[in-house]
């Protein structure tokens, strides 16, 4: 009986094509395609890894997921009072609470992807050393778990927008989609690149921590674009400022959730501020360009990742 099983197995295997283990001599696009099909095979694992990350994060804590709300709410309170009330940003930005929270939620997604993604390969060292897997799956799982956390916070944001009577029927709401997409695209590109580099040079993880602190202030999250434009508007510094993809994403996100609100509009009118000065005039084109560049960057960083991953098992 086992003889039949043996012969069946032999017959089945002889019909299979050989799989070649890569030695980095594949063409630029063939390698990408091959690894994408590998990735597709492991999509269920990706889901499980995301769930593992979310579950393990707050396991054994009695408040559990509530913790993922506490941090952004604390930040909201700090910025609302310290900058909105004491420093007086409230006076030039109506509905400052929603303005800040919109920026914080989107920024939280980006920083979580960067910090979590950078550590993802090292944290899964046990698997990488012992099991053959498409390793891109680990930075992608970090992106996934950050995105799930973001969705929870986005629900809180949406509730706040409705509760304060700021929900309006306008097409501008759809700016939220490209805003999130930009963050995901650049986050994925950077996370996989930094994760791979971090294996070889552990300083990367500390560098990312510092960079995240600095980048936070380079996007209009606690101050408005109009304030920036009034200082550096029209100069080359403004072009540099707007070349930051996250800045464009934050501006698009604010235009979706904060700007159309009735209280925002009347507040701006009372201040005598034109609402269209809250974002650059060519925002649409900037969004499209940023997404196009981001897509190329994802591909490029994936190529670099594939090149670097051959030695992961020894370098970790």
């Amino acid at each position: 009986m086992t003889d039949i099983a043996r012969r069946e197995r032999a017959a089945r295997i002889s019909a299979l094509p050989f799989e070649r283990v890569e030695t980095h001599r594949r063409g630029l696009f063939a390698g990408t395609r091959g690894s994408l099909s590998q990735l597709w095979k492991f999509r269920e694992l990706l889901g499980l890894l995301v769930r593992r990350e979310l579950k393990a994060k707050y396991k054994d804590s009695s408040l559990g997921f509530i913790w993922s709300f506490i941090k952004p709410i604390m930040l909201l309170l700090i910025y609302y009072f310290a900058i909105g009330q004491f420093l007086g940003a409230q006076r030039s930005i109506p509905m400052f609470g929603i303005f800040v929270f919109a920026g914080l939620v989107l920024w939280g997604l980006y920083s979580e992807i960067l910090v979590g993604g950078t550590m993802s390969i090292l944290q899964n060292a046990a698997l990488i050393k012992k099991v053959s897997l498409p390793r891109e799956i680990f930075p992608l799982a970090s992106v996934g778990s950050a995105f799930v956390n973001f969705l929870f916070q986005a629900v809180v944001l949406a509730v706040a927008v409705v509760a304060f009577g700021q929900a309006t029927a306008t097409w501008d709401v759809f700016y939220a989609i490209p805003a999130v997409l930009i963050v995901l695209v650049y986050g994925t590109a950077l996370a996989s690149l930094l994760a791979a580099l971090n294996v070889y040079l552990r300083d990367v993880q500390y560098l990312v921590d510092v960079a995240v602190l600095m980048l936070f202030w380079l996007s209009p999250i606690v101050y408005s674009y109009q304030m920036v434009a009034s200082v550096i508007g029209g100069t080359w510094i403004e072009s540099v400022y707007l070349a930051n993809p996250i800045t464009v994403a934050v501006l698009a996100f604010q235009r979706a959730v904060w700007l159309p609100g009735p209280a925002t509009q009347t507040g701006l009118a009372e201040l005598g501020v034109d609402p269209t000065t809250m974002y650059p005039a060519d925002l649409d084109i900037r969004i499209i360009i940023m997404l196009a560049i981001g897509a190329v960057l994802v591909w490029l960083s994936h190529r670099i990742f594939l090149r670097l991953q051959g030695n992961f098992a020894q370098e970790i």
Partner: protein
Amino acid sequence: MSPSKSEAVAEAPIVVRLEDVSKHFVVRKEKSLKERLVNFGRSRRHREDFYALRDVGFEIPVGQTVGLVGHNGSGKSTLLKVIGGIITPNAGVVERRGRIAALLELGAGFHPDLTGRENVYLNGSVLGLSRQQIDDFFNSIVDFSEIGDFIDTQVKFYSSGMYVRLAFAVAVHVDPDILLVDEVLAVGDEPFQRKCMAKIEEFQREGRTIILVSHSSGQIAEVCDRVIVLSHGHLVFDGDVEPGLQALADSFTNPAPTSTEEHA
């Protein structure tokens, strides 16, 4: 090789094929960033290529049980990882087909904070099973592991024996065509080891290909029908078990330092 054996080999399809596979590691002598910067231009002088594998090539047909042996640092674990796709070789061709499962470490990827059940799904998925397959195998996995009601307990509360049993149970349910085993059979108590060996024999009867790294000549003699001996990254013997173990003994007494090449 006896003529009857090579005949059997000739008709069996090949599952693993290696051709001139080499893997070298760069061993840098200076460690700190400062030293690297200072010696930037002359850094070639400060690096040393260590060849873990050098021009290794062989073919393994379906259903064979191959023992990879050699002294410590001979490159056998590296070779196993190259076959498993965990390490990319620097040169050469590695081809394989069929589902491959690597038992390089039992429970790699178990997350201590998750329950046994969650880890079965995670680990099964890591080894390439679909959710549906794990659902189907789940009871059988739990039975084999003898974990019982502890399956819904977090893995960090398991004893090391329970941990290993559960991991082994998942791995043997992957239904591999090629099973890579690295020393893991040396863990667990005696009944469990017997269970492992029984499973290996069952795999052999089912015509699965097994590639085994072991330091135990007794184990090799018991289960393998072919031995590959490595010494300093070179393949020094490939053939039947008895002369293979003799060649292994020779490589202990007669280490070949000529094969460790250092790039000046």
